């Protein structure tokens, strides 16, 4: 029996369209749009000016804040403008650097392989990771250098490499594990070294046998790293649920993985770390899956950060039928887009295009109290009550029912026969609760001053 967590849903995976397609480099884009906010944390300040010539890997944005990650030019050329442009995840226009390609793809002089990380001081390793602009590539885009610097009093004993890829449709992590397993393990070892962790776990769902084989080979005889095969179930790739499945530990409400001595990174992130040392190239490209019923030729593509969705759709041969919904990421947690004029950012794991005839706009109907949402909630919440409170503006009640613990996995909304917009309601409650807390904290500060 493969390991897993209580709750969750067995979703159809729809991975066959792209799982056997080797990662392909895309044509060099003519123009990239690089938002200065691509991560959780403080946005970057631009380091370049309009008209300036930049090269691949050159730093174009940085911030002095601790929770942030620098941003680099992904093509060589001229900065055409720095202006607020539509962002695929933040739902508003965000300051972005637009670079017009010179076609040369010239690499910045500063880019060179880094010395052996295991001979470095762990703090130095962390600063290489920060300078490379690496963030969690699983979707949340949390700066990796911050993640691997937990408070001093937290003892970390396990590092989990997340290769679960439980979101339907997405296959980019799968392909990375099949094609670049050695870099993934090297990256994991670097991350373990930087955090002083001795035990590593590579976690893969049992629906990816090729990836399991490849990673097993790459681990070889290293007894510090263990391969864990997990049951294929959504949301197996959530940090908290991986930790529960692999280590049997429960992250407390409001806590983080380091509270139970664990750290989790995505395979893509580990490979980006490996690249930052092996070639010295910062995070200027990533692998994404382009798939869905309206995509003629599903593919796994290595694209430059900042490439517009429209260029990528063109690259895979356009739409095979009229698109009904374009989603950045997977169908469960992805963000629907209304324009193809948005760029791939560090957190883009895929582009999913559903055909128009696949989308139906039915419901919502009144809750029938079937409690299916309760059965599947991996956080043991009561989504029906959270939804009902949130829709009535009773945010304090939603807070008492642990709205903030919701990981927004979407399992509840997926199974709801009445098609209640549960996740939207819970998100609204969460943002209202957080806004209230911020206001309270602010007034407390003001009262002290």
């Amino acid at each position: 029996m493969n390991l897993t967590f209580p709750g969750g849903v067995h979703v159809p995976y729809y991975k066959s369209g792209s799982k056997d397609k080797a990662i392909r480099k895309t044509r060099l884009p003519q123009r990239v749009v690089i938002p200065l906010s691509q991560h959780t944390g403080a946005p970057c300040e631009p380091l370049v000016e309009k008209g300036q010539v930049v090269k691949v890997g050159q730093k174009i944005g940085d911030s002095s804040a601790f929770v942030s990650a620098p941003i680099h030019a992904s093509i060589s050329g001229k900065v055409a403008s720095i202006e607020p442009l539509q962002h695929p995840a933040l739902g508003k226009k965000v300051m972005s650097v637009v670079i017009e390609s010179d076609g040369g793809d010239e690499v910045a002089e500063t880019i060179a392989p880094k010395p052996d990380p295991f001979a470095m001081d762990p703090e130095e390793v962390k600063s290489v990771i920060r300078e490379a602009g690496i963030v969690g590539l699983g979707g949340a885009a949390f700066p990796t250098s911050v993640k691997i610097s937990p408070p001093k009093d937290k003892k970390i004993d396990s590092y989990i490499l997340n290769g679960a890829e439980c979101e339907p449709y997405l296959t980019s992590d799968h392909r990375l594990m099949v094609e670049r397993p050695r870099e993934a393990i090297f990256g994991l070892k670097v991350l373990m070294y930087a955090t002083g962790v001795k035990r590593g776990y590579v976690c893969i769902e049992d629906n990816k046998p090729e990836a399991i084989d490849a990673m097993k080979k790459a681990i070889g005889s290293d007894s510090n790293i263990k391969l864990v095969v997990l049951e294929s179930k959504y949301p197996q790739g959530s940090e908290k649920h991986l930790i529960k499945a692999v280590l049997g530990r429960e992250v407390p409400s409001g806590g983080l993985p380091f509270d139970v001595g664990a750290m989790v990174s995505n395979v893509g992130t580990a490979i980006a770390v490996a690249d930052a040392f092996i070639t010295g190239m910062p995070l200027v490209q990533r692998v994404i899956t382009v798939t869905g019923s309206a995509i003629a030729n599903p593919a796994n593509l290595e694209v430059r950060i900042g490439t517009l969705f429209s260029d990528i759709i063109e690259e895979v041969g356009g739409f095979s039928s009229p698109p009904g919904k374009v989603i950045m990421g997977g169908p469960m947690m992805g963000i629907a887009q209304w324009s193809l004029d948005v760029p791939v950012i560090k957190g883009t794991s895929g582009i999913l295009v559903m055909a128009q005839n696949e989308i139906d706009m039915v419901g919502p109907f009144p809750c029938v109290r079937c409690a299916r949402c309760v059965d599947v909630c991996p956080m043991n919440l009561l989504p029906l009550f959270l939804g009902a409170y949130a829709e009535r503006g009773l945010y304090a009640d939603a807070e008492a029912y642990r709205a903030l613990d919701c990981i927004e996995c979407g399992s509840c909304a997926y199974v709801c026969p009445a098609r209640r917009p549960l996740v939207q309601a819970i998100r609204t409650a969460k943002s209202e609760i957080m806004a209230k807390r911020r206001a309270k904290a602010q007034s407390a500060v003001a009262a002290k001053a």
Partner: protein
Amino acid sequence: MISAVVILALSGLAFGAILAFAARKFFVPVDERIETIRNLLPGANCSACGHASCSSYAEAVVSKGAPVDACKVGGAAVASKIAGVMGVEAVLDEEAKVAEVMCRGGRSAAPHSYEYMGISDCKAASLPMLHGGPKMCEYGCLGFGTCVRSCPFDAMYMGDDGVPVVDRDACTACGKCVEACPKHLIRLVPRSKKIHVVCSNRDRGPVARKVCKVACIACGACVRACKVGAISLRDNVALIDYSKCTECGECVAKCPTKCIIEVPRVEDTKGGTQSAQGEVA
């Protein structure tokens, strides 16, 4: 029979005596001022003062020293009466205000970017994940009426074009709607002033023009038209300094997108003719 009457009478007397004693012994002085202030307050229990009800505000004024001018509904008149009761300086006579929605981009003027299917609430629709709502204009009114539902005085209703309208006679300037609107479109403006810029779009002109027919395009025609220099452009939106505005109406005439308007308009009292405005523009 007799004994029953006697026992009843005696125990009645005894309990009466105990009650009389207790009433003296445990007497809690109730400040009459609380009652007086409660009677001065409008009794709307709108909680715009930050207290749960009019009574709890009255109590807070007397026992916790809450400010005497917190009742937005009662305004300066009630504040000065409360100040009288409390024996403090009467507060400044603040100008009467009224709510105004700083957007007229209804269905006929402002196109949608996508088909929205979800909760009919502006807060829920304006989540970042939903790109701030289905309006192409990032700043505009979503029209789900969260403000209308928040008004304790029934002073707002949804206009025919999908933008809320304030009933100026009923509005008490309590400010509840100002808090409710996630797009921060509602402002309390001086009741005596009739000319307002009803747009909040901070995009540059060409972009603003694309997302809404009645958007301020920051062309500056109003700034040039104003003889007393009451209008300036801030963040690509015209801003009227109400203390300078003489209500000459020059700017209203010059604005190419008609986003400067004079209230009260016909629509304000009758409703239903809002879409005509879109057609003019």
